């Protein structure tokens, strides 16, 4: 198997609230390999976004260690590409200026940055919108800008937090296909949070399920589908069976 690009070693984490502390992770251990597409599902409040906050370095584990590309660094900020739950574009920046943000911060020269952004906008079907403001764009387009911004961070690991949850069904579908095409082309590792079991099955190699609290172990499902994927593939018997299992596991969590 290829090398692990992300590894959690016995990571425990808790949020401190007024007088009590809420345990979210308890010696959690998992690995993600180079070029994998991983979906993370779990009930609301189960700690999915928190997992991302730990990976990006916005939060620090109470104990244990997080390894990115084989390195353990206490300051991980700036080492992965992160696309937050809302598209979070800066309304005062044009599409071009929004996309160039991570390059500005990394101190990439203006010329270099320009080349990368223009190329990216073209690949993402956003050419001609460089000088528009986010308010001019549709939801799907804003998501693409936000995704481009994460890609331009230059990291080989991308964290996408429910990127398509606010889109209508049709847009969502075309965005999923588009995302798969981008991923296949770029070979980055993607961690993808979603509430939508179908979406997780359609997109990912493996699915992590957060069921308990605190999370001691990620339940894991390997999606039994070849690539390239088609929507009809979702109706194969072994896939529908897995879907039922996944929904069952999520329901258990809710009835707790």
């Amino acid at each position, binding site marked *: 198997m290829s090398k692990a690009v992300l590894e959690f070693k016995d990571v425990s984490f808790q949020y401190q609230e007024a007088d009590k502390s809420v345990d979210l992770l308890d010696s959690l251990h998992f690995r993600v390999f180079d070029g994998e597409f991983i979906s993370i599902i779990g009930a609301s409040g189960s700690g999915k976004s928190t997992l991302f906050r730990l990976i*990006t*370095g*916005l939060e620090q584990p109470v104990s244990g260690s997080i390894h990115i590309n084989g390195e353990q660094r206490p300051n991980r*900020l*700036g*080492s*992965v590409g*992160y696309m*937050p739950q*809302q598209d*979070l574009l*800066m*309304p*005062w*920046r*044009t599409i071009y200026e929004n996309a160039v*943000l*991570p390059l*500005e*911060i*990394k101190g990439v020269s203006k010329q270099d940055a320009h080349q990368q952004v223009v190329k990216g906008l073209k690949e993402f079907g956003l050419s001609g919108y460089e000088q528009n*403001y986010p*308010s001019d764009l549709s939801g799907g387009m804003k998501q693409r800008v936000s995704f481009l911004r994460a890609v331009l*961070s230059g990291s080989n690991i991308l964290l996408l937090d429910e990127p398509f949850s606010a889109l209508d069904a049709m847009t969502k579908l075309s965005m999923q296909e588009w995302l798969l095409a981008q991923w296949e082309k770029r070979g980055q590792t993607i961690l993808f949070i979603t509430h939508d079991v179908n979406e997780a099955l359609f997109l990912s190699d493996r699915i992590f399920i957060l069921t308990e609290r605190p999370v001691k172990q990620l339940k894991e499902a390997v999606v039994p589908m070849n690539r390239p994927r088609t929507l009809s593939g979702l109706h194969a018997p072994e896939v529908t069976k897995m879907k039922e299992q996944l929904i069952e596991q999520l329901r258990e969590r809710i009835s707790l």
Partner: protein
Amino acid sequence: MRNYLPSILLIAVFVIVWEVGARIVNTEFILPAPSGIGLKLWDLKGLLLKEHLTSTLLIIVIGLAISIVLGIALAITMTQSSVMEKTFYPIIITSQTIPIIALAPIFVLWFGYSIWSKVVVTILITFFPITVSTYDGLRSSSKELKELLLTMGASKKDIFFKLDVPSAIPYFFSGMKVAVPLSVIGAAIGEWLGAQEGLGYFSRRMMTQFDGAGVFAPIVILSLLGIIFFLIVIMFEKKALKWRK
């Protein structure tokens, strides 16, 4: 223009009623007619515009400029240091309960009839809206965007210039829209109390001479000045906030 039609009509009615009323009352020195004020303006235009307007304008421009620099500096200091915030914020808020206008004579004592006594009044009256709005604006920046910038490896400086400052700009302009008309009032009041030139001074001098139209004529110019400054702020605001639709 059509949007303003009702306002324009109302003002026209008001001026006509005033004109008719003034002619009926017929006491030029107490209630001058709008036409009389217009004539007076025309007669005095050289004197008013060249001498008195320049002097008032200078006070407004200097006062506003200092207010903007001080206000922004203090707002930034308060957002960067919680000690500064705890020290200054309550003082700035309570300072608004001091009747600044009543303090104006003190400044005449200190600075005499020089331009600075008037500038100080203008600063004190415009400082508050500029500081508080800029401060609120700097603190209004979204926490989510800040975290996003952090995940990109942003420094404190990046966050300040790429997030806090742009977030503060709409607030700053709101503050300016309050401050600009106040600056005209501040300058005029300063001039009432101690000046040898300026529109406020001239208006007051005409009062002592029972020249009603002479009192109003400089006030008309002062109002126009306020309106022009306001429009200039709006122009800059439109430019700076073209992303807002």
